């Protein structure tokens, strides 16, 4: 009972964020209470944190890497590329944005797409005289749904990667088909849903070609190759991402007029409080799992990775992700289905695609944001919600069927 209360407090704090305080403000003391109050033995909590260590380390490294890629002009370059490739057509711009958002999410993780790519895409559309709604929503949707391909694309993938027993390339191989299926479904839904906006004629404005940040792009490509190459040798992706970040950071800091400030900004991009939050949340969820949640989830999840089993697990994962947010949902689900790699991948489809349904990550967040918005301005349009209601069930179904096919074809699992 106390464990439920602790998790509820941690999640409620993360939703409300009173006075803009970081989420770790509640998560870390809650974890301390869980350990001090005997809900979790110290040894188990320590093991959980050791297990989370490489994931959190990678998280910090990839956040810095994305920040540095932005500082090197990678996102501005991508925007210029999209503008030129679209040649003034809103539909072509949507297609290019889909490709860029899917690539950025896969390599630099979903944070990069939401935080760094979305504003660039808006500015690109505005400069091209195109109504930006479809392209901007594409970024936010693909940040979640497009994060299936690589273990590094989403915090949820990193949390579950160990349980799959797959290699880096093995994971990508299994998830390639579901990823492509999701992209295809999302693209079809977007073309239909935004047919009106996409049909608005635009007058193409001349676009100045932005110089390609070759050094940064080369470092990113090497980092990506490094993830795949180093992992069989037992080198965690966190080290590769950190190495890539250092290579990008050093010239930037050395050349900066105010070195101390630039270095401070790079360090701050690791978002250490977020890392503490993940540790705290891991311990609090562990407390809940040890007090009945594991049994409950086990009774709800099927044991076999047949098509129905995969569908049920993906559906349950999507439901949980919308109830409590996808990171706690992953922490809860993955240990229960860890006996079957196929089910772990199905759970990942659910927690990655599912959040687009309530688009703010969870029902509680949605309700709270509605209350907030109702105070200062009329409630926003429900376009985002309708879009999610159409695309999420279709994406889940397509991705699970694709995963089932991939499992049938696979020789690895």
């Amino acid at each position, binding site marked *: 009972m106390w464990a439920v209360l602790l998790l509820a407090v941690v999640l409620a704090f993360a939703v409300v964020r009173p006075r803009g305080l970081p989420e770790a403000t509640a998560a870390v003391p809650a974890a301390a209470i869980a350990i001090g109050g005997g809900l979790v033995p110290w040894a188990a909590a320590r093991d959980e944190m050791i297990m989370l260590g490489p994931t959190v380390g990678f998280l910090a490294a990839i956040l810095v890497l994305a920040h540095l890629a932005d500082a090197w002009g990678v996102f501005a370059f991508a925007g210029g590329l999209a503008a030129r490739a679209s040649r003034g057509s809103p539909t072509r711009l949507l297609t290019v944005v889909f490709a860029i958002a899917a690539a950025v999410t896969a390599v630099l993780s979903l944070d990069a797409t939401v935080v760094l790519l979305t504003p660039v895409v808006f500015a690109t559309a505005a400069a091209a005289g195109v109504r930006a709604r479809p392209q901007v929503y594409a970024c936010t949707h693909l940040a979640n749904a497009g994060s299936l391909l690589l273990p590094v694309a989403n915090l949820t993938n990193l949390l579950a990667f160990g349980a799959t027993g797959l290699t880096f390339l093995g994971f990508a191989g299994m998830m390639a088909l579901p990823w492509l299926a999701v992209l295809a479904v999302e693209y079809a839904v977007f073309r239909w849903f935004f047919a009106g906006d996409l049909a*608005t004629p635009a007058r193409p404005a001349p676009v100045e070609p932005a110089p390609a940040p070759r050094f940064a792009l080369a470092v990113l490509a090497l980092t990506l190759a490094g993830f795949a190459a180093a992992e069989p040798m037992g080198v965690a992706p966190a080290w590769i991402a950190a190495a890539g970040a250092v290579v990008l950071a050093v010239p930037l800091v050395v050349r900066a007029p105010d070195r101390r400030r630039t270095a401070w900004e790079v360090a701050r991009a690791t978002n250490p409080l977020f890392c503490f939050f993940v540790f705290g949340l891991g311990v609090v969820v562990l407390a809940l799992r040890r007090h009945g949640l594991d049994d409950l989830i086990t009774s709800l999840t099927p044991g076999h990775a047949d098509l129905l089993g995969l569908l049920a697990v993906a559906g349950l994962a999507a439901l949980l992700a919308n109830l409590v947010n996808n990171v706690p949902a992953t922490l809860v689900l993955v240990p229960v289905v860890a006996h079957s790699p196929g089910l772990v991948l199905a759970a990942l489809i659910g927690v990655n695609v599912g959040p687009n349904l309530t688009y703010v990550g969870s029902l509680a967040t949605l309700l709270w*944001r509605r209350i907030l918005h109702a105070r200062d301005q009329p409630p926003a349009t429900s*376009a985002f919600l309708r879009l999610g209601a159409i695309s999420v069930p279709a994406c889940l179904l397509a991705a699970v069927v694709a995963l089932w096919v991939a499992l049938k074809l696979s020789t690895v699992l």
Partner: protein
Amino acid sequence: MKVVVWLAEGTWQACVDAAAEVAPPSASIALLHVIDPALASDVSDAFAGLVGRGTRGDPGAAVGAAAARAAEQLLAAAAARLDRPSSPVRRTGRLEREVVAAAEGADLLVVARDGPVSRLGPRSLNPPTRFVVDHAPCAVLLVWPTAPPAVDTIPPPPPHKATPPHKAAPPKKAAPPHKAAPPPPPH
């Protein structure tokens, strides 16, 4: 005469050109641009959905700032294209409601079609524009953003409505009362 020109992304040039053509030299021209804050707020919400990231670096704020910059550029470009005295009007809110409110007291509202412009028909107006045309409290000049499509883009009338109802053969029903045969006299 007071003319309000609604400038929307992609189609504003046609509205400005039309206003320049029809507005008499004495007319006062207001160049209206509306920002719908829902887009930036939805991006903020999507960022809030990433649990645990804190409140720093909200991309919704960046999108909002970029929208404001783009609006200023658009208003400046429109004023330059009009090339006669005009006043910019900036509004924030739901597009259709703001445009209707801004047209209050005006004599003419210039609006462009913004849906698929490959054929004539109601789809050439997206829902907000349809709302504005339907609710405008003044005369509306509805322009095509590109050369209007040919009349033969209207699909042929469906067969069962080939003849307009008022010319169609009268449906089978009792003859109108004044021509009806008098009821048989009672025995």
